């Protein structure tokens, strides 16, 4: 009988432990990955600028979702990957490019599926004749997390300062 009682106590204690341990996981909201997401987006932005400076069109396009939009001043919205690719190709048709950004702020949704980046850019472009101009403006990007965990741009929107 003493053994039985001891076992009963063990069972009762185990039940309590199991309930606490088993349930502490379930109601918890999804893990907050915002810090890591922010770092991944920052990295993707840097890699995109490097790819543009290297005039690697395929690499540039790899940072866009399959159905992106691109807003640039002085032209209607560019919709769809083929159209964005064409616009990008035109952008890369220069002698040299230097793309810089500053004051970037990234807001990642708690769920880690969407993120929004904004800030300032400075594009220094050397055209085919060797003339160099610098243009400054503002950017606002919509980033979407892909099924493989990478982040890609769904909307690339820009406004020049002048």
């Amino acid at each position, binding site marked *: 009988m003493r*053994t*039985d009682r001891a*076992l009963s106590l*063990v*069972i009762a204690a*185990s*039940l309590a432990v*199991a*309930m606490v*341990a*088993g*349930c502490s*996981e*379930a*109601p918890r*909201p*999804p893990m907050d990955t915002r810090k890591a997401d922010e770092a991944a987006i920052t990295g993707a*932005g840097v890699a*995109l*600028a490097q790819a*543009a400076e290297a005039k690697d069109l395929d690499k540039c396009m790899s940072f866009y979702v399959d159905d992106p*939009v691109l*807003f*640039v*001043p*002085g*032209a*209607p*919205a560019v919709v769809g990957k083929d159209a964005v690719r064409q*616009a*990008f190709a035109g*952008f890369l048709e220069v002698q040299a*490019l230097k*793309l810089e*950004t500053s004051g970037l702020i990234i*807001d990642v*949704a*708690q*769920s880690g*599926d*969407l993120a*929004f980046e*904004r800030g*300032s*850019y400075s*594009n220094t472009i050397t055209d085919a004749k060797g003339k160099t101009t610098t*243009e400054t403006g*503002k*950017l*606002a*990007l*919509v980033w979407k997390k892909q099924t493989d965990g990478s982040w890609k741009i769904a*909307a*690339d*929107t*820009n*406004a*020049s*300062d*002048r």
Partner: protein
Amino acid sequence: MLRFRSFSLMLAATLAAVSLGACSHQPAALPDNRAADAAAVQKADADWSLAAQSKQADTWLAFYADDAVVLPPNEAMATSKDEIRKSITDLLELPGLSVSWQTTKAEAARSGDLAYTYGTYELTSNDAKGNATTDHGKYSEVWRKQADGSWKCIVDMWSSDLPVAPAPAPQTKHRGAKHSRRRKHHAN
């Protein structure tokens, strides 16, 4: 020993049952309100365009969150409330102004804290000679859900569709207008 073993088995079985059973009634995931959130943001955007018809800065500014930034074309980013008020006031004071916009797309995050919209706008104003000129373009907005459940805009950007004027005319520069006369392509 036999008895002890049966207790051990019972213990194991009970633990397994409790582990499985205890949590099955808990919600597996947060409810998915993305469609409702997107609809709410789209409605807020439509309400904003309607409210803009009053041409009152306060009415317009009420759609911005306290930490909003405005990224208009042809001028610097407006990050403080004063800068935003000045930028919007300049826009609303354009002579003969008529402005409206329409959402093309609205999408919300799974967590319901952030969302975005983009769309197209039309703007008519009078030039220096009093002739009505029409501009049209596109905009993008980021929205954040507030503590009271309403959505407020935290990032507002727009730019004109119209190509750069071939000869830069030195006439009146409409600061704050949704006009952009410089063609460019920008990667990031």
